């Protein structure tokens, strides 16, 4: 990856993510999240995963977060209303999840060597399945994986989504 | 009271589709778009083309002079008195050595004038006329207070329209009676 893409995209992702958590204004928070997604998309594009990078913007930044903004606009949130949360408990939980996340990254990077003591990831809990390959045409690559090798999970996921949609309609609509 | 229920006609499929009507509408506007050259000709190209003003048109009030080139206004202040928005202000000249009074200052504030024409109607000397001038503009308020000179200037454009000439020729008559006294006017 181009080092410029990495540093700029990574910085945008991290700064955006942090500001998204710390902003008191909900709309500003969402906008920083958009910035974070754009940075993440840049990282994907830098890794030649064009399809995922584009979908990241199209789905998250372009569709889901705009719904967030939409809901926030209608709720008319005030900063004081957002501050009524149980501070110590959230800090503890946040730290715990951050630690768990770091542990996961370490596990992936070292191939589980820290846990098993084996060098080079032999027999690790999480094992790399091979060197990342450069695939010609990322759309084709993603489609190939989804529809040839992982068709069943893909279909199950779509059924799950359908159930969720039907459920949300059933819950919100009073008269069907 | 008896009433009739008007049953709405069932719309056909084409009507409910809405697209045929849209196309019909667009055909109509296209007809206008294409044939607009002729019809748009009714638009007057203002600064180059101007209105044919009717004879009764009331534009800027103006002062006129008699056949001998003397101002007709005698500073009687009737117009100042009658003016509804009080746009006119007159200061008469000293009357020594003249046959008739004349205004020292004759100002019409065009920001106040409502073009009612009362001044024209009330004037006993037929000295003030509503001109055909309607393009009034200025960058300051002061610029839009028309002074005596400007009003005579506008009045000069009226020509023969400015009512009957001084039939009595009173200046000449008075001058004959009193001999040459160095009468001056307006």
């Amino acid at each position, binding site marked *: 990856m181009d080092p410029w893409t990495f540093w700029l995209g990574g910085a945008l992702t991290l700064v955006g993510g942090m500001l998204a958590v710390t902003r008191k204004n909900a709309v500003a928070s969402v906008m920083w999240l958009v910035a974070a997604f754009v940075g993440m998309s840049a990282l994907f594009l830098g890794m030649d995963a064009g399809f995922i990078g584009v979908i990241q913007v*199209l789905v998250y930044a372009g569709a889901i977060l705009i719904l967030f903004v939409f809901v926030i606009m209608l709720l008319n949130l005030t900063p004081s209303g957002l501050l009524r949360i149980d501070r110590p408990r959230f800090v503890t939980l946040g730290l715990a999840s951050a630690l768990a996340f770091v542990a996961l990254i370490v596990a992936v990077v070292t191939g589980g060597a820290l846990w098993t003591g084996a060098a080079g990831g032999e027999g690790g809990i999480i094992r790399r399945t091979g060197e990342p390959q450069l695939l010609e045409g990322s759309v084709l690559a993603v489609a190939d994986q989804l529809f040839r090798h992982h068709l069943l999970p893909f279909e199950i996921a779509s059924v799950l989504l359908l159930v969720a949609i039907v459920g949300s309609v059933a819950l919100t609509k009073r008269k069907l | 009271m008896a009433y009739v229920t008007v049953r709405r006609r069932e719309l056909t499929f084409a009507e409910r589709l809405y697209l045929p009507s849209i196309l019909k509408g667009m055909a109509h506007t296209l007809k206008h778009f294409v044939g607009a050259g002729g019809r748009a000709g009714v638009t007057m190209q203002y600064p180059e083309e101007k209105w044919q003003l009717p004879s009764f048109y009331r534009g800027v009030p103006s002062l006129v002079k008699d056949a001998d080139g003397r101002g007709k206004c005698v500073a009687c202040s009737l117009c100042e008195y009658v003016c509804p928005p009080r746009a006119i202000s007159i200061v008469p000249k000293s009357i020594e050595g003249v046959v008739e009074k004349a205004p020292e200052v004759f100002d019409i504030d065009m920001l106040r004038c409502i073009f009612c024409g009362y001044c024209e109607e009330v004037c006993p000397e037929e000295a003030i006329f509503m001109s055909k001038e309607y393009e009034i503009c200025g960058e300051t308020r002061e610029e839009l207070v028309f002074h005596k000179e400007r009003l005579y200037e506008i009045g000069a454009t009226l020509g023969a329209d400015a009512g009957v000439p001084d039939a009595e020729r009173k200046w000449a008559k008075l001058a004959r009676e009193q001999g040459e006294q160095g009468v001056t006017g307006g």
Partner: protein
Amino acid sequence: MNALPVLLAETVSDGGVWASVNRTFVESRWAYPLLLVLVVGNVVPLLVSFLVWAERRGSALIQDRLGPNRVGPFGLFQSFADLGKFLFKEDVTPGHVNKVLYCLAPAIAVIPPLVALAFVPYGRNVMMADVDTGILACFAVSSLHVYSVTLGGWASNSKFPLLGGVRATAQMISYEIALGVSALAVLMVAGSLRLQDVVLHQADGWTVHGETLGAWSRFLDWNVVKQPIGAIVFLIAGFAETNRHPFDMPEAESELAAGYHTEYSSMKFALFFLGEYAAMIVVSALFTTLYLGGWTLFGLEDVLADWVRSSAPEAGWINWAQVVEGVLHSGIFFTKTLALLFVFIWVRWTLPRFRYDQLMRLGWMRLLPLSLAWLALTAVGVGILR
């Protein structure tokens, strides 16, 4: 993707430092896209200014008036006079707004449409970013456009802009789905997301069971023939996406003052204006690419290019043959796009505005099922004929 060396046959023959620097730049993969970015990035705002003029003159003619005809011949330079006015007007930022987002919104209005134009093929070799996610990238970038109206409405912190912003957001999200689904049917027929492939697929005649039909089928190969319903849905959804009449809910002068840009003045307002027209150009360019055969003209574009090329000067410092081809192709492309832009203007001055509930009903209960049904039908058709 041909790089600039194709365009410049023999760049610099003699040595010297400047020559080598020049050669390095010209042969780098940045040079040609950069040139195109410079051209398109300047042509589009220029096109917008003439589009505004065309809108005003067109509306005038439709209403039997004359329209602006004073500045320059036929009033062509009216927009530049207006631009000068916008630049020198006082830029008021009301005291009650959220300053950062208020200033961000006009910028977001302009940038996404301009970026989206980078993915559109203007000719065989005239393209800035030939990515294999083509249409998705285009949609992804232009989907960010909605933030401008949303933020503009919200950050203004007053009632009409907020209502306009909420309406715009709901409208744009709703119609984006129908837009995407109808475009999906085209991609299914073309068998590729790459816009260049979509264009070329519309120029090679019908292919049934692997056999290409006769030359006559080239004239029926545009997707507007193969995908009539999809084209109509795409066009209607495109009108709604760009907030144009008869879907100009977000602005709706008679109800909402000026909608989301009520509180904006001076150049910030002008940017919203520019963004709206740029979005119109994007939708027209996409419709041209997806349904009207892009830069192709029933194979005539090659015949013409060959003819012009034969009379072109020898390839010297500049490869004239390539330049001629590029100009010809983008000329065909822009002619089609401009025709569509005229349709945008024409419709605006013909149809009255929809009511908001009618708008939503049309989007969700008519266009979306229609486009989904058409997608299914296309899938079956492609399955049988391929």
